[in-house]
């Protein structure tokens, strides 16, 4: 029924909200597990909440262009706050809930925030502790009362009370509803829809400004691409402030009209996933990795028969699963065997993981191991890769059903243009392209080319089948003194594909050889230690254990062998490595909030270790300051062993000899 003109008139999220409330008013829009029971709001009920909240916001002076920060976990009230702000043509600014007070204050200050909607006491405390830095801040609205009883309520308002007040206005005054309609109708495609702050991989985070029409257009394209409809359902567990959550959940839900379920708490996501059974799912590779690690550990502890059955049918799936998923020919015997395996292993396993109903799943953010990737696909889960950026409002490339590989990220997404610059940097132009960095014209100019393409900062190239391959951050690709190419992330990813290695940091630019610092994965190495009677009391002790070192040495050797097979990389093998005594942590600034390694910062912080890696020492002393969750500081010191590796002759050279 939607004509072209009608469609183009739906150029803001509030307009889509109103449409969904009218078109599919009785269908579920939001769920939240509260006090152990799933509560559901239909599109009509949800829109009522948004309208009520918008009226209350207007009442405390929120208007066109005002910035409303949203800090907290995925809660219906916070999603309503985003929509209510957009309804008033105000600009929602979601902030990472785990940001420490100083990071939070920076964003609130930088974005000129007038109202903060905070989830609970923890967030309210952070905001209030830096209130003197925020002269524009007029009100703090909170969702959960707990612990705030004794606070001065002059500038603190409960969101439930605001919604109540708004509902009362709607009930007794017909003009109130008309006012909302007028607000929505006044919304324009070129309005700022949201400001998403980047996670700050390099330096301070930047506010990425999105336009309403661009956001809606981008989401409409991918909803069509993946055939999403109002029968779909997602679990909104990604950080509210991340473009992934705002796009995949909020934006796509509004365009397609599907239901978004909010988990009970961050710790219950796995159980909630099982109860909801989402049909569309996104997770970064590390989530898939830790799930697989957990499955494998559980299988190690299972009885003999179960173990045998599991390994037999996983082998069947490895051989045939992906072919069957992609609709490629497979003999009848294989199909039968796969069907039995599905009955006995795959379906129960998928059910336990909450993946039973998945039609489309994506992973992105980091490279994913071929084994890991095909494990899930072989179970019949349509897992694909996409490549995206906040600046693109997510999608730059995405893989089509049936044309999926682990080492590439797919062709350009619908209506996206991609170009590779002379230095190998990937450039794109997309419907959802950001408008600018908030209050940073220089950075905006730096990032855009003259013809409006965005510089991604990633180096990559197109494969023969038209899929994009990303090697590394363009600025991180360096050279050894010998002139050999050094792509740190490429080496790190190869290491990280071993379940025992959680994180790796490669050093080598302008050096004689490549060295790496490794973080072990406590879950799998700990389980290994248990099975092999290796006793340990702490992460540090386990990381320093000689047998763990031996195990990691074998992994590094395998990586060197695989590097030796690649002509471009053969000369950048790992010469020396060490195992770090502590886990890299975002609280210590070593990872970004999206868990990406901050290489430069780490090189500085662990300078004594880096020096030792290059001066030939056999071990090194290190003392590092750590930040506890409450912001207090402590220190850990350790003596770290350094291991020398044997270089593997490149494959070509071996043949020549």
């Amino acid at each position, binding site marked *: 029924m939607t004509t072209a003109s009608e469609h183009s008139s739906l150029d803001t999220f509030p307009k889509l909200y109103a449409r969904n409330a009218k078109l599919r008013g009785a269908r579920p829009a939001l769920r939240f597990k509260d006090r*152990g029971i799933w509560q559901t709001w239909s599109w009509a009920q949800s829109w009522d909440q948004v309208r009520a909240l918008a009226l209350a916001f207007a009442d405390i002076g929120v208007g066109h262009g005002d910035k409303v920060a949203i800090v907290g976990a995925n809660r219906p009230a916070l999603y309503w706050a985003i929509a209510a702000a957009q309804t008033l043509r105000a600009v929602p600014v979601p902030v990472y809930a785990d940001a420490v007070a100083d990071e939070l204050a920076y964003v609130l200050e930088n974005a000129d925030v007038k109202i903060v909607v905070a989830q609970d006491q923890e967030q309210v405390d952070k905001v209030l502790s830096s209130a003197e830095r925020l002269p524009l801040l007029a009100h703090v609205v909170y969702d959960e009362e707990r612990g705030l009883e*004794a606070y001065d309520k002059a500038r603190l308002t409960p969101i439930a009370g605001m919604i109540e007040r708004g509902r009362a206005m709607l009930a007794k005054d017909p003009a109130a509803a008309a006012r909302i309609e007028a607000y929505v109708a006044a919304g324009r495609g070129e309005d700022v829809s949201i400001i998403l702050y980047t996670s700050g991989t390099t330096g301070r985070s930047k506010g990425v400004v999105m336009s309403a029409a661009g956001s809606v257009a981008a989401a409409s394209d991918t909803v069509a691409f993946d055939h999403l409809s109002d029968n779909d359902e997602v679990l909104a567990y990604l950080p509210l402030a991340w473009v992934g959550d705002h796009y995949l959940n909020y934006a796509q839900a509004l365009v397609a009209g599907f239901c978004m379920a909010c988990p009970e708490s961050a710790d*219950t996501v796995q159980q909630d996933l099982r109860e909801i059974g989402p049909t569309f799912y996104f997770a970064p590779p590390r989530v898939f990795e830790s799930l697989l690690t957990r499955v494998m550990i559980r299988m190690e502890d299972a009885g003999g028969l179960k173990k045998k059955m599991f390994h037999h049918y996983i082998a069947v799936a490895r051989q045939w699963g992906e072919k069957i998923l992609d609709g490629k020919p497979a003999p009848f015997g294989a199909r039968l065997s796969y069907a039995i395996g599905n009955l006995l292993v795959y379906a129960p396993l998928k059910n336990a993981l909450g993946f039973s109903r998945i039609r489309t799943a994506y992973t992105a953010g980091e490279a994913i191991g071929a084994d890991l990737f095909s494990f899930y696909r072989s179970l019949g889960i349509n897992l694909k890769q996409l490549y995206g950026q906040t600046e693109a409002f997510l999608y730059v490339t995405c893989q089509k059903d049936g044309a999926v590989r682990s080492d590439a990220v797919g062709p350009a997404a619908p209506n996206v243009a991609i170009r590779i610059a002379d230095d190998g940097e990937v450039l794109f132009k997309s419907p959802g392209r950001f408008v600018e960095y908030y209050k940073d014209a220089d950075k905006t100019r730096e990032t855009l080319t003259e013809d409006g393409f965005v510089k991604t900062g990633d180096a990559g190239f197109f494969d023969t089948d038209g899929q994009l391959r990303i090697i590394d951050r363009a600025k991180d690709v360096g050279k050894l003194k010998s002139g050999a190419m050094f792509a740190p992330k490429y080496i790190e990813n190869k290491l990280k594909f071993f379940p025992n290695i959680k994180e790796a940091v490669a050093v080598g630019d302008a050096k004689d050889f490549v060295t790496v610092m490794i973080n072990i994965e406590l879950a799998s190495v700990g389980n290994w230690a248990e099975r092999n009677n290796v006793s340990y009391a702490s992460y540090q002790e386990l990381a320093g254990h000689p047998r763990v070192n031996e195990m990691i040495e074998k992994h590094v050797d395998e990586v060197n062998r695989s590097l030796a097979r690649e002509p471009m990389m053969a000369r950048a093998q790992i010469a020396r490595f060490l195992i770090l005594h502590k886990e890299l942590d975002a609280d210590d600034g070593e990872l970004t909030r999206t868990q990406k390694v901050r290489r430069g910062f780490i090189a500085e912080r662990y300078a004594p270790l880096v020096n030792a890696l290059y001066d030939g020492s056999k071990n090194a002393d290190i003392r590092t300051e750590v930040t506890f969750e409450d912001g207090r500081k402590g220190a850990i010191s350790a003596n770290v062993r350094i291991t020398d590796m044997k270089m593997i002759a490149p494959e070509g050279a071996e043949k020549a000899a």
Partner: protein
Amino acid sequence: MTHHRSDDIAPGDILLAVENVSLAFGGVKAITEVSFDIRKGEIRAIIGPNGAGKTSMLNVINGFYNPNEGRITFAGRTRPRMKPYEAASQGIARTFQNVALFKGMSTLDNIMAGRTLKMRRNFFWQALRHGPALDEEIEHRKFCEEIIDFLEIEHIRKTPVGKLPYGLQKRVELGRALAMEPTLLLLDEPMAGMNLEEKEDMSRFVIDVNNHYGTTIALIEHDIGVVMDLSDRIVVLEYGRKIADGTPAEVKSDQKVIDAYLGVAH
């Protein structure tokens, strides 16, 4: 029911008074003529070196031991000899130094167990799980879910508590005590054996219980830093005798307390 009387007491008035209480096991004197009071709505700490009689004092308050001498007045009623379940039905709940939970039961079932005294239907109806008994169970479940939410233990709702780490078991035990809707909550070393982060979490829960439910709390704790931060008033015991009583600041500067903790040349 007797515990209704505690509602008549205004915040700040005396909820529990211990007067000249002595307790001896055979010839060993555990407590000697100790007197102090607990005011409604406050957090009251009992501290002292090992063997000072702190746990014995809690056991006297909740009726596990009966004092040889002296009187205990709770909610305006001076009580004769009593049993722990009588104390419980009067609104006194406690947690233990060594976690005392049903290890094979889930978190939820353990907390539900704390509702036993609140169940009105008799055993027969409960066993049938029908009609009014079922409605009642739903009511109790709702209350327990509030506690689960309050203590942030949703993720372990269905986990057998024996499988949980110690810090979480302590939290479940607090949950079970809260399920009784106590007027007076006795916590025996709620932070023993915890790391810094767990201690801070537990401290926050203690303060929140006090603020949110208005529960009067008496606690024994070894971590002096925690005690000074949490408590409104502190009683200090040494060798079964009271040596000091007052606000954290007063207690901290009391010479007898300093001597008791740091030792003194005799």
